[in-house]
């Protein structure tokens, strides 16, 4: 399955995605959540918090 990164436009390939799965764009590194709209999947920036330890 092919997606386009909504942030940087890069092409993202993923197999057998499921709703709620988190993908990372290989180009810009943004984390994207797989959302199911009707019967097709799309990506939106994930809102989950990753570990953020400091500078």
């Amino acid at each position, binding site marked *: 399955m092919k997606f386009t*990164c*909504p*942030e*940087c*436009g*890069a092409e993202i390939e993923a197999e057998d995605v499921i709703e709620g799965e988190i993908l990372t764009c290989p*180009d*810009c*590194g*943004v984390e994207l959540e797989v959302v199911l709209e009707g019967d097709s999947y799309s990506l939106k920036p994930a809102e989950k*918090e*990753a570990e*953020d*330890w*400091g*500078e």
Partner: protein
Amino acid sequence: MLKIYSPTGQEEKLASFLAETLKKLGFSVEIDEVGNVIARAGRGHPRILFCGHMDTVEGVIPVERRRNVLFGRGAVDAKGPLAAMIVAAARHFAERRGGSITLAAVVDEEGRSKGIKHFLAHCKETFDYAVFGEPGRAYGVSIAYRGRALLKLTIRTEEGHSAAPHLFKNAIEHAYKVLEDVKEAVEAKAEDYFHSTSVCPTIIKGGKADNVVPGECQVIIDVRIPPNMEPHQILKKAKRVAESYSAEEGIEVQVKLLDSIKGFEVSEKAPLVEAFKKAIRKIAGREPILRRKTASCDANLFVAERKTPTVVYGPGNSKLDHAPNENISIPEYLQAIKVLEEVLQELTSTP
């Protein structure tokens, strides 16, 4: 700013560019002896410090915009956050709002923090609030950082021939035991990782030849501590462990504190934090995330000396710090500027 490559030690060109830009924006500007750019605007209280760093890690990343994203070394760590503070401060005074801002763009944050240390030693001003610019998303504010005690253990024994290891105490083998003992004495698990004292051995060196029982082993231990703990308390505990070994028994243990940083935490109810919470709700339209970080940054040094209410804020995903694809979301950057503007307005309009 991204097009001016400025790894640690090579910040001069960016400093000149910022000094010129800040002058045009109405700030009075100086570049100090170590290369920090210090810009001031406004008058009276509240006195607010905006502090960011000009240096980046090494490695050029071509500056390129792709849709919503701007790539470049320093995009998130931390030219994006520094630029957001500059724009917000300039807009604040363009609107003829009150208070005063000192904007410090410092050098060497990725090195030995020479910039902030020099600023602290020479800046006579006092501040009511401080914001340090580091990426943590436009909707997040870091209100606490852990401290650090960097320990060096030196374990000494008698050297001997490695064909007869049963006759000698091996410094490397005993280093494992000393390390375990120090870990047991120092490590403290709390309800979450931030409030815990963590112990991580990071460097170990020992032995000098493949046929000699080693007589010396050095272990560096990175101990991270919550704000209610002092680095010297860690040193004291480690020294107590060292004293349990003795030269008479053939094992000598020395402990040194190589680096110490005090942690800090600002209350979730502090006016500065409240101003950020209000601004994020208004501009980002969501609940802010208040973070307690398990590492440390330049703000630790500032708070330890000045006791000023301080938070760390800036656009960008800190997972991209030092990464080869470092980039920042342009809409998020613009949102962070608005959040900072709101914060300034709130702080300067509160009696």
